């Protein structure tokens, strides 16, 4: 046991490195209290959330070049984590702003006080997950973000499909986190530790039963796979994405996925990297299990199933749900290379994916405000009834397909080149075929908006100028990052280094 003075000194140091997360917890508590005190105010907790996120951003900015562990090696601060935390933070801000313009939330729920409070809580869970290097913290963080997202998915209680979405999410979530903690217990039984660094050291020094290790990691993967909605852990995705309020769907598809990918990458690198060879940029893995292949299988399944099933969907939110499964597949492809170039390409992809996906969902929310539907047939002629929305939606869809000159193209370019560089040509080929398939259903939305019901004499859609400004906040980066992407690429390559402990 530590001496008291030594412990307090260490605690002070840890807390000083935990400031972004602390800011989130404080914002969470303040929002909770303000909501209790001022019942009538409409968006008070929303503004509190925004201020809290800005303060978090300030502390995160001050951590930029830090690399350390805190709280007895339970928590890691490194460039990789900070990049992912930026993605989560920016998308949290984006989601709060989108929520302000989503009528559904204000009409069908009784007050939005808890809504923004829970968004802050979820952001805290994701921050914790990104930085955790201990299986207990991983589990707690996943539960924190899951519990908040269960409630958020069903926030519009009056809407039947939202309650259904929430219930399905809870059931699938409970099962997968149950399987995950079972896997954790097996891994603990094999190695005698919950700390990823110590597990790594143990695996390097002692041979363990391969089958038991394989089984435990697959079980833990089911927890991560559930968060990133990779096949075969994706069953909840379409129903929850369709039923949840649009901003929450966007949040689940971007931030929640970012946190899942962050912990997936950290788990594999920290646990299985053989640190002896010295050159860390291509990971040499411990043990004889072919993890590349396991992840590559998940990638192929996710891409193919996501894209093929999306072809038959008639609801835009469902299409985007299956497309998000497919996007998880593209990113898993880069994860399966298990080298630093792969990590960098996942980071680049996420930054681009964040902008374009939030944008696409925002357009869906604005259209739903007017026509109250997300069915693809109701999108007929919308390109003429709402020209700005139509043009922006087209831009986001092109970007999601991965065509130049948009952000999505750059993301895909780096992912595919990382995969090819690592020598997985067959995987890249599957990826390219899938991108072509995906073009079909993205174009379907576009076609309905511009080629069907051209001479419609239905009224034009109305939207406030502020909502259009926010739309440009997503649309301009989607174009800009497709052309001037050097800074993001540099930042991502610099952040690809996952901290391996002392």
């Amino acid at each position, binding site marked *: 046991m530590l001496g008291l003075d030594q412990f307090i000194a260490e605690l002070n140091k840890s807390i000083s490195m935990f400031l972004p997360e602390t800011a989130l917890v404080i914002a969470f508590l303040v929002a*909770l209290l303000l909501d209790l005190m001022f019942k009538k105010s409409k968006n008070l907790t929303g503004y509190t959330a925004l201020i809290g996120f800005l303060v978090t951003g300030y502390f995160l900015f001050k951590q930029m070049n830090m690399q350390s562990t805190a709280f007895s090696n339970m928590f890691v601060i490194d460039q990789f984590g900070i990049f992912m935390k930026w993605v989560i933070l920016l998308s949290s801000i984006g989601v709060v702003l989108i929520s302000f313009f989503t009528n559904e939330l204000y009409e069908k729920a009784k007050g939005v006080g808890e809504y923004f409070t829970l968004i802050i809580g979820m952001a805290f869970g994701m921050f914790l997950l990104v930085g955790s290097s201990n299986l207990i913290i991983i589990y707690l963080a996943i539960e924190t973000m899951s519990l908040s997202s269960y409630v958020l998915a069903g926030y519009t209680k009056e809407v039947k499909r939202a309650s259904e979405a929430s219930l399905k999410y809870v059931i699938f979530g409970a099962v997968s986190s149950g399987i995950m903690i079972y896997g954790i217990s097996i891994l603990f039984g094999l190695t005698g530790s919950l700390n990823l660094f110590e597990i790594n050291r*143990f695996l390097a020094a002692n041979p363990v039963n391969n089958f038991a290790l394989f089984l435990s990691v697959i079980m833990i993967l089911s927890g991560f796979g559930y968060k990133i909605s990779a096949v075969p852990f994706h069953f909840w995705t379409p129903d929850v994405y369709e039923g949840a309020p649009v901003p929450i769907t966007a949040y689940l598809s971007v931030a929640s996925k970012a946190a899942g990918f962050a912990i997936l990458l950290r788990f594999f690198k920290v646990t299985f990297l053989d640190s002896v060879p010295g050159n860390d940029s291509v990971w040499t893995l411990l043990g004889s299990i072919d993890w590349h292949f396991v992840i590559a299988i998940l990638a192929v399944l996710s891409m193919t199933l996501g894209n093929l099933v999306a072809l038959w969907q008639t609801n835009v939110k469902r299409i985007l749900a299956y497309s998000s499964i497919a996007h998880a597949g593209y990113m898993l492809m880069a994860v399966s290379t298990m080298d630093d170039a792969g990590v960098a390409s996942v980071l680049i992809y996420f930054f681009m994916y964040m902008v374009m996906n939030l944008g696409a969902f925002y357009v869906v929310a604005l259209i739903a405000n007017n026509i109250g539907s997300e069915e693809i047939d109701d999108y007929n002629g919308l390109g003429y009834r709402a020209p700005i929305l139509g043009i922006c939606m087209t831009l986001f869809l092109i970007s999601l397909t991965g065509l130049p000159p948009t952000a999505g193209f750059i993301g895909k370019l780096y992912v595919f080149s990382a995969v090819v560089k690592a020598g997985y040509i067959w995987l890249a080929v599957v990826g390219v075929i899938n991108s072509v398939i995906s073009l079909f259903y993205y174009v379907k939305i576009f076609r309905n908006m511009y080629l069907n019901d051209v001479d419609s004499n239905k009224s034009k859609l109305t939207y406030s100028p502020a909502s259009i400004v926010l739309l440009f906040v997503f649309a301009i980066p989607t174009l800009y990052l497709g052309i001037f992407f050097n800074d993001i690429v540099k930042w991502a390559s610099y952040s690809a280094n996952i901290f391996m402990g002392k």
Partner: protein
Amino acid sequence: MDLVGLAFYFLAALIVISAAIVVFSKNIMYSAFSLMFTFFGVAGLYVLLNADFLAVTQIMVYIGGILVLIIFGVMLTTRITGVDVKSNSLGKIQVGIAGLLSTIIAISLIVVFSSTKWFLSEPKVSGDSTKLIGNELLTNYLLAFEAASVLLLIAIIGAAFIARRK
């Protein structure tokens, strides 16, 4: 077989059988009551593992708190007690696939548990485990402790929100 071994098998049988009743019983009252035996069995396992604090907590929290709450909930919601829980409305294909998967998983788990060389730590001095747990929670596991408190707060807010009248 020594006394500890006998006690283990007795408790394990108790847990498995009562857990099976929880799942398969069609009357929700029977499920709730047999859940009590499951919890007791688990507490017994903790005692066998020298985890006295955990065993007492298990009894106090799960049986004293959660289970009593469940039973009260069931009894106060008059409509539930009479309703049979339907658990056999699945198609044959689903049951077949689920059964196959479960069998595969069960077999691989049995293989793992019987063939693996587990990590065995040195037996520590047993004694005042409460004090040790308290110290660990507020030093090495401080972050987990605090994170759990935020998690519980979120759970309470969520539960209150869902339960609130429209």
